[in-house]
């Protein structure tokens, strides 16, 4: 949809949301409730839904029953409930994520509203959430909740008078930790790219189309599925709206302290693998399922030496958490008999061979769907990055919250670093004259919504690929060395500037090894290979 309002970064405050009770809903909503052992509280949850101000003919409730051993029946749930309430059985898999997804698949509404089976919603909660989805197609609305002891409520029978929550008026309550983030970021308006990390908690809603585009809940996750989905929604350009008027009550005290550390330890391994935005949980030097940055280079028509020099330089970045997509007509490389040196496909064949064993390099014919949080598009194989270049460029983008960084090389070619979420947002709100598949056509819009900047190539650390220094690994040739001497040479300050303590340690080591000869000449930093050959020769 191209005539919807444009939200800059996560500043949803510019959206003109109507006041509650003063607008006409038109979109249908499915409230999806994952249920497991929920018999005790579900009647109150349904009664709360029965009291909603949202038009009944636009509201359906889909309860995903996750307990095949003890199937849930509507008949056993006493009390009022919305007219269009039904139960769907989870037939394969288990867990909240799986149940939510099952419910989503069965849902018929334009909007999906998650609600846990222990949440009592206030009468205008659904209305509050839905108004955003009438303004844009990429909102993810997060409601507000308090944790309370449910006993005062359970002492009464469920009622659809819309006043059940009043029983908690003077009750002790706790708030969810995300509220601290809301307080700090003007209810997420100032949270920028970090807004997605608050996609936790049970009352959230989004358009069905956005849910499908993001790939739906990861049904294999047992915990942390919200954060994983939140990341994928952000990558589709979602705007995270924190609506304090969408109020609900969690029927049960918060157990945050009790097992939270264990929960975090459990989550981190699953989530760090899938969510590059959780940079603090990732470690240097290894790969993850979803890379932080994807580097794209079209190698068609390019000299293979230049391509290999450039790609090797990318792979040598201090930022190892990356993936490289090389675009070429790979399917045209045949195995027919031909002189290897006269092969027309020699250059791409050599490139393919060079990276056959590099899991980070992927060969493709076209760029395809963005695979990382950022995408670096190299214009050619003439300019190669130095080790700190990629890390610095991405960190600059992170710190500025920008959507695009353009790097101007001395010959006028331009490398681009694109923020996936920014280009997804721009594609959604661009006017009809823009081709959403051509990123460059979206640049002006990305600048308007997220910001962009130019930097100079040499400043960023790019050097000509023809002359960039690519250090080789250490040589291994030579006759067999004495192990004790070799070990000393390889340890301590081998190659580094001399330090007095180290020299003493080496003398001590020498004495321990029983060397009785005259004192070895003092170690000089960076001894030449010739010197060590001579020393070896003496033995």
């Amino acid at each position: 949809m191209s005539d919807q309002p444009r939200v800059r970064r996560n500043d949803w405050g510019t959206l003109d949301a109507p006041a509650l009770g003063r607008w006409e809903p038109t979109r249908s909503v499915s409230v999806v409730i994952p249920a497991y052992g929920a018999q005790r509280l579900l009647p109150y949850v349904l009664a709360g839904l029965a009291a909603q101000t949202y038009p009944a003919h636009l509201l359906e409730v889909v309860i995903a029953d996750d307990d095949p051993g003890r199937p849930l029946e509507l008949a056993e749930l006493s009390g009022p409930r919305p007219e269009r309430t039904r139960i769907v059985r989870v037939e394969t898999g288990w867990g909240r994520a799986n149940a939510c997804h099952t419910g989503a698949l069965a849902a018929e509404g334009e909007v999906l509203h998650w609600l846990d089976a222990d949440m009592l919603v206030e009468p205008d909660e659904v209305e509050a959430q839905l108004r955003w989805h009438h303004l844009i197609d990429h909102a993810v609305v997060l409601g507000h909740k308090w944790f309370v002891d449910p006993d005062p409520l359970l002492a009464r029978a469920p009622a659809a008078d819309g006043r059940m929550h009043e029983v908690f008026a003077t009750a002790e309550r706790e708030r969810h930790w995300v509220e601290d983030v809301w307080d700090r970021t003007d209810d997420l308006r100032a949270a920028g790219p970090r807004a997605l990390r608050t996609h936790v908690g049970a009352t959230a809603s989004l358009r069905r189309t956005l849910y499908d585009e993001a790939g739906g809940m990861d049904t294999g996750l047992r915990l942390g599925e919200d954060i994983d989905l939140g990341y994928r929604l952000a990558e589709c350009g979602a705007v995270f709206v924190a609506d304090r008027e969408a109020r609900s009550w969690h029927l049960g005290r918060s157990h945050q302290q009790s097992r939270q550390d264990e929960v975090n330890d459990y989550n981190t391994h699953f989530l760090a693998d899938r969510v590059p935005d959780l940079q603090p949980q990732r470690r240097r030097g290894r790969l993850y399922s979803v890379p932080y940055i994807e580097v794209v280079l079209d190698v068609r028509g390019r000299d293979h030496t230049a391509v290999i020099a450039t790609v090797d330089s990318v792979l040598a970045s201090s930022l190892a958490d990356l993936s490289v997509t090389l675009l070429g007509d790979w399917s045209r490389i045949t195995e027919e008999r031909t002189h290897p040196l006269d092969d027309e496909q020699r250059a791409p064949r050599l490139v393919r061979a060079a990276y056959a064993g590099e899991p980070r390099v992927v060969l493709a014919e076209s760029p395809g769907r963005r695979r990382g949080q950022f995408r670096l598009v190299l214009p050619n194989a003439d300019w190669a990055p130095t080790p700190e270049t990629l890390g610095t460029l991405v960190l600059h983008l992170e710190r500025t919250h920008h959507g695009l960084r353009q790097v101007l090389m001395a010959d006028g070619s331009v490398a681009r670093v694109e923020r996936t979420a920014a280009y997804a947002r721009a594609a959604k709100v661009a006017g009809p004259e823009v081709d959403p598949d051509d990123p460059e056509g979206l640049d002006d819009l990305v600048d308007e919504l997220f910001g962009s900047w130019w930097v100079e190539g040499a400043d960023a650390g790019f050097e000509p690929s023809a002359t960039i220094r690519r250090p080789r690994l250490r040589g291994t040739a030579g006759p067999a060395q004495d192990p004790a001497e070799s070990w000393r040479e390889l340890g301590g300050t081998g190659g580094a500037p001399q330090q007095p303590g180290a020299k003493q340690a080496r003398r001590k080591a020498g004495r321990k090894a029983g060397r009785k000869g005259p004192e070895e000449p003092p170690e000089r930093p960076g001894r030449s290979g010739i010197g060590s050959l001579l020393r070896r020769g003496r033995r």
Partner: protein
Amino acid sequence: MLPDAGSILADLAAPALVLTGPGADLGPVPEGVTCAGLGDQVPDESWATVLLAVADEAALRVAVSALPGLGRAKHVACYLASATGPVTTVLRPEWPPLAGLVAETPDGGAHTRLTFRRPAPAGPVLVELARHSGTPVATGNHGLVVTGAPVPVDPTAVTEEVPAAVVFGGRADLPEHPVLGRAPVALHLRGEPVGPLDEALLNPVGFRRDWGRGPVPLPAGEPTPELVAAVRDAQAVVVPDDADARTVAGLAMAGVPLVGAGYPGVDPIDPADLEDPLRREEHSVRLRRAALREHSHLAWRHQVARRAGLRAAAYPSVSVLLPTRRPEQLAFALDQVARQRGVAELELVLATHGFDADPGLVRERLGARSVTLLPLPADTVFGDVLRAATDAAAGDVVVKMDDDDWYGPDVLADLLLAKHYSGADLVGMPAELVYLEPIRTTVRRRGPSESFGAVVAGGTMTLDRALLRAVGGFRSVPRHVDARLLEDVRAAGGSVYRTQGLGYVLRRTTHGHTWDTGLGYFLTRQSVAAQWRGFRPSRLLEAG
């Protein structure tokens, strides 16, 4: 080791005359030293030392225009209770040879003493010391002598021998003066005058684009360089409704951003804009223009002349030198000249290099303004094109403009204003805002403004035509003519001043099909202060 103020009197060679103004207390007076206040009768004696002690540089400049007869003395000295730096001078050739010069800054003040081999005329020496404080603005009477005004009007101008053409507070029936050939004009001051204020001391030099603290209250007292220096690191000064108009005007002349009641005639600045360095500086420029044109000595004298119906020294006439080899750029370039305002006498010398300008187009864009068309053959060396344009120019001041850069409507007026208050020989603007056309990006570059001695953009160079001719004009070189001229002016001992460049945007464009490899330079870390997508000039360009 610097002597403290108290011991200055003790070192004077007797007999010594000490003239003191208010605010300069040197302590107990020893034997052999005679003290007199400014305006008091001075004993008619021969002095070995004459010392003038005043509060600050502003007081020094005012005091020397009303000195009593001081005769000659071997030692001539001045003392300022507070100063922004030491007081020095240039020796005039008619003085006796100098034996020694001491210039110190005790306790935030200044003490300078010249010792001559033979007694020198004390009054003129003191005048010369005062002339070299502040910026070297051309002071004096500017062709109109005024007396009787209850505000200081003649900074460093000595008027005892010149009859006044205007007398304030005088009777309407003053007798005809034999030298003037008519009676002096009698004027009465209207209301409480604010000005005039000394633009040699109160000017934008030293304006800071960044700030270390937020808005501060209006400081009390007369506007002086020290007062201005104390608030240079503040984001703005808050002006209350009952503020002293002189202080406010003085701060405005110096370009100190003002909030609250602000300065009359200048739109107040939005508080959000005050946080943006560019907007804050734009506001400062508007304040400077308004205040300098209203309250500087030069402006005041012109106002008095208009009221009296007399002539004062004219503002300089300007010749714009506009060389171009691109017929397709002509209309654009003419528009930049046509929009200039605030310059009374302006002529354009259009040097078309390799083509003939269409006189109809020129007339259409420039209306009634004076234009000289100078077509030159395509093989003329570029420096010679400018030389020919200089020769064809008739104005007092020459400004070179480029054919593809953007100029706000106040650029010429701002350059002339800067030339006046800086007293520099060559004035220009920095190429601070640059539009990189091939990548459609505007860059604001780092670098100082309102300072001496730096490089200025070639498309804004402003200097007296006589000086340009004296240094040999533009050199006969095919490129980098601007850099050569800057070097030549410097080599001849001329000073270069760089004013603000917010009304000027340099355009970098591709030249045919060759990529401009210099474009990346404007995007380096050292260079960039800010950048925007698209064409984003400052508001002072008044684009669109």
